[in-house]
């Protein structure tokens, strides 16, 4: 790994780049902005282990940050997180920019997935990506003023004047939303055909949330599809900058509202990593079990809606009934259903209730029979197969170009499951397979997820049968909420408890990112602590965001009905895309 750093240093010139220490041990190299294109091209094509996946691109507003040891001067830092699947390693490239001149070359010509990420960084920070094909706002409305993730941008309504909706304001906003095909890069004339422009969404039964796709149709054949997102943007990243490390946990639940505690997972692991905390085994296994339960819940919902989107009416009802059983287990354990916010920094909220294992094992015995039934009903149905096979296919390399991870990538024949390749939270102790498929089409994306349900059941059964004993939360001063048992015994503990509850834990300064295999791909939290009770910057990299960017590539030339199947197979929720 260090060889890559050395290679880079020789390429760029050792004096021009700086190496930064981070808590996650990912080599982090600062390079001057002129070099970013050549550096990424080098990493993609010439590095000893090529970095196929540009995992994340975003920026940091460094202007009010206190702890910046080993880091060059910078007002705005653009970072690029790259992953090499062949070498199983990461690298993070940072580019310092000044406030007055925050231009940097776009890398979307090298990694196409960078297109939207750069638009997001432009939208949120006002970073000017030169030579970007389409540098427009992506998450905020077209007439938004300011760049939300800059530190000077207000974070709550009380920091601003009361909002009033004037007729002029309304009209201007509505006019800005008007659909002009040319602005969306659509070619409106051809010799023989009048094209039809169809606005699919933001409210449409099959776009799974508020998602808009502008379609250019020739009859019913899609000539061009342009996805438009941002209707579900809630500034989750901005909110992290005014919530304590502990009180941000419930917000993470709502990033991907089908994922439940899967969202807590990377966040708490990341904070634990920065705090240097060791999580007890029992807590780790409980976490794994809940995460897998939620994975099943999400995949069941996906399975049902997938069948529904190709016009099969019944499966979704059966699967909702099964999901309901599953939620009753989750409810018994956590007290919540979709958003239990149950993980804590250092462990989980509570120990498991009495009789939990009987419920879990019951479910493990119940579901496989139902899955056999669904297999016959949906997956083996000839019409469903004809509707989905060969539709929206891509191979592994194309998937990686567009930042596709998780089941959608495994449908192309890749075996990259983080639970196996980079086991976290004791996943290496479990016996389970990684389902794969080969064609990478709509059917296979569903196939992989359906098979994953069975694998998750295996993991859950192993959790239930081999649950370790011990504490459910780390005995660490930064674990939240702090232990209360001894607070009434001595004043010192009481003071610390009081402070840790009212302020929340103070995480030591540093940076770390953690990736987990979330329900539909890799979800990562990249947190920066400036030694305070709140995060200085939290970057949420969600798997659905790049997947939507890929829609035009895989749907052009297909029909509207196919687009619906493709959209269904991506398994996104808009909350996860827009954050």
């Amino acid at each position: 790994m260090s060889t890559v750093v050395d290679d880079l240093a020789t390429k760029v010139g050792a004096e021009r780049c700086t190496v930064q220490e981070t808590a996650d041990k990912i080599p982090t190299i600062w390079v001057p902005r002129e070099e970013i294109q050549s550096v990424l091209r080098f990493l993609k094509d010439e590095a000893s282990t090529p970095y196929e996946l540009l995992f994340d691109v975003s920026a940091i507003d460094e202007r009010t940050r206190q702890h910046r040891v080993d880091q060059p001067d910078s007002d705005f830092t653009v970072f690029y997180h790259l992953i090499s699947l062949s070498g199983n390693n990461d690298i993070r490239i940072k580019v310092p920019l000044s406030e007055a001149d925050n231009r940097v070359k776009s890398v979307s010509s090298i990694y196409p997935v960078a297109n939207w990420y750069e638009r997001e960084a432009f939208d949120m920070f006002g970073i000017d990506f030169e030579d970007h094909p389409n540098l427009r706002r992506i998450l905020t409305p077209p007439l938004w003023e300011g760049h939300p993730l800059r530190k000077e941008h207000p974070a709550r309504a009380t920091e601003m004047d009361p909002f009033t909706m004037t007729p002029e304001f309304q009209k201007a906003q509505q006019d800005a939303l008007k659909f002009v095909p040319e602005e969306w890069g659509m070619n409106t004339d051809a010799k023989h055909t009048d094209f039809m422009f169809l606005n699919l969404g933001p409210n449409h039964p099959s776009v799974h949330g508020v998602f808009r796709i502008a379609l250019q149709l020739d009859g019913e054949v899609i000539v061009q599809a342009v996805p438009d997102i941002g209707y579900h943007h809630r500034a989750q990243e901005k909110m992290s900058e005014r919530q304590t490390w502990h009180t941000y946990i419930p917000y993470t639940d709502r990033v991907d509202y089908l994922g439940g505690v899967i969202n807590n997972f990377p966040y708490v692991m990341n904070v634990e990593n920065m705090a240097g905390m060791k999580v007890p085994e029992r807590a780790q296994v409980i976490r794994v079990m809940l995460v897998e339960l939620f994975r099943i819940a999400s995949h069941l919902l996906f399975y049902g809606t997938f069948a529904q989107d190709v016009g099969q009416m019944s499966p979704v009802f059966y699967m909702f009934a099964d999901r309901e059983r599953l939620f009753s287990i989750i409810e018994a354990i956590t007290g919540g259903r979709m958003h239990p916010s149950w993980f804590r920094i250092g462990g989980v909220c509570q120990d498991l209730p009495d009789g939990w294992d009987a419920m879990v094992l019951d479910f493990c015995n119940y579901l496989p029979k139902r899955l056999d039934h669904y297999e016959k009903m949906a997956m083996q149905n000839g019409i469903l197969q004809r509707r989905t096979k060969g539709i929206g296919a891509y191979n592994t390399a194309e998937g990686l170009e567009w930042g596709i991870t998780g089941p959608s990538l495994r449908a192309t024949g890749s075996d990259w499951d983080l639970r196996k390749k980079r086991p976290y939270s004791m996943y290496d102790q479990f016996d389970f397979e990684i389902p794969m498929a080969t064609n990478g089409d709509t059917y296979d994306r569903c196939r992989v997820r359906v098979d994953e349900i069975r694998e998750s059941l295996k993991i859950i059964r192993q959790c239930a049968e081999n649950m370790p004993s011990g504490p459910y939360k780390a005995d660490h001063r930064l674990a939240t909420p702090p232990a209360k048992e001894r607070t009434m015994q001595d004043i010192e503990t009481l003071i610390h408890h009081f402070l840790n509850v009212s302020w929340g834990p103070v995480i030591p300064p540093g940076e770390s990112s953690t990736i987990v295999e979330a329900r539909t791909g890799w979800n990562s939290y990249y947190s920066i602590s400036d030694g305070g009770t709140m995060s200085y910057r939290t970057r949420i990299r969600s798997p659905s965001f790049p997947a939507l960017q890929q829609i035009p590539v895989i749907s052009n030339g297909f029909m509207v009905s196919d687009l619906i199947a493709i959209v269904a197979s991506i398994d996104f929720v808009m909350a996860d895309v827009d954050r």
Partner: protein
Amino acid sequence: MEFPPNIWSYVLILPIAVGMLVTALILVWWERRLLGWWQDRKGPNRVWPWAGGFGQAIADAVKLLAKDDWVPPFGDRLFFVLAPAIVAGSMLMAYVVVPWAPRESGLIITDSNIAVLWFLAMSSLAVYGVLLAGFASNNKYALLGGLRAAAQMVTYEVFMALSLMGVVILAGSFSLLDIVEDQAELWNIGPQFVGFVIFLLAGLAETHRLPFDLPEAEHELTGGFHTEYSGMKFGLIMAAEYLGLIITSAMIVLLFFGGWLLPPALQSLVPTGLASALVGLGVFAAKIIVFINFFILLRAAIPRPRYDQLMSLGWKILLPLSLVNVLGTGAWMLWTG
């Protein structure tokens, strides 16, 4: 056929029209209950629990009637209002030739030697309602739905007509009374099984119900041709769908399952006179209900093919098949004299 028909025909019109509309209303509720039963849930069971929740159907009808009668200002007003009337009207007109019980009972508005063609003519007129609804709404989803409907229905019209020609050849008549009476020995489902399958598929496509509901395909076109419809206009379109369902089931029973006839072995047990009319009506209704339930089961079970798949199924499989069927039946008739 006599013209003008006797007074009895005029008397029958109102009860049949009202009866069919009420049946359509019951079916809306019945379908939801059945689907609920098949899908592990309850369906509408809260209004009038003592009647299995049937009050829901009436409540829905009242709601539809009481709703604001909105006509989109951006659409074509004339067509928008006309379309539901055409759909429901043509469907109701098709009932004119349906014989509900044996010939002696006179439970038929008019027997005609073009009864089968009349049914086809009316179902081909229903296309206009759908097409105009899609066109008048001035909505792109409605337009796509209307276009799909027109192509699909015109296409399947062809196979529907061809599929029942075999039956017509066997009976030597277009009159439904003759066709049913011709089946006293052997129901047409035996010799005309291919025709039955094609007619079933074409009937599904004509009534555009799932799995062939592409003109309205909720997941693709949000509502298709009736996206902009609400209130009683939507109610009429909905009623027409169920009227179509009933008439299609009735035609299947009449053409292939011996209409009001019991299986040949049991037919001799039927008494004569008024009782025969009652038994006939009951048997006919029971057979229709079986097919309606079958259509509802299809809706619960099968996904929707894509538009081009539906069309190629029609032109590439059903068309040759129905031609072969007509040819084969004709040859057989020649052979046996």
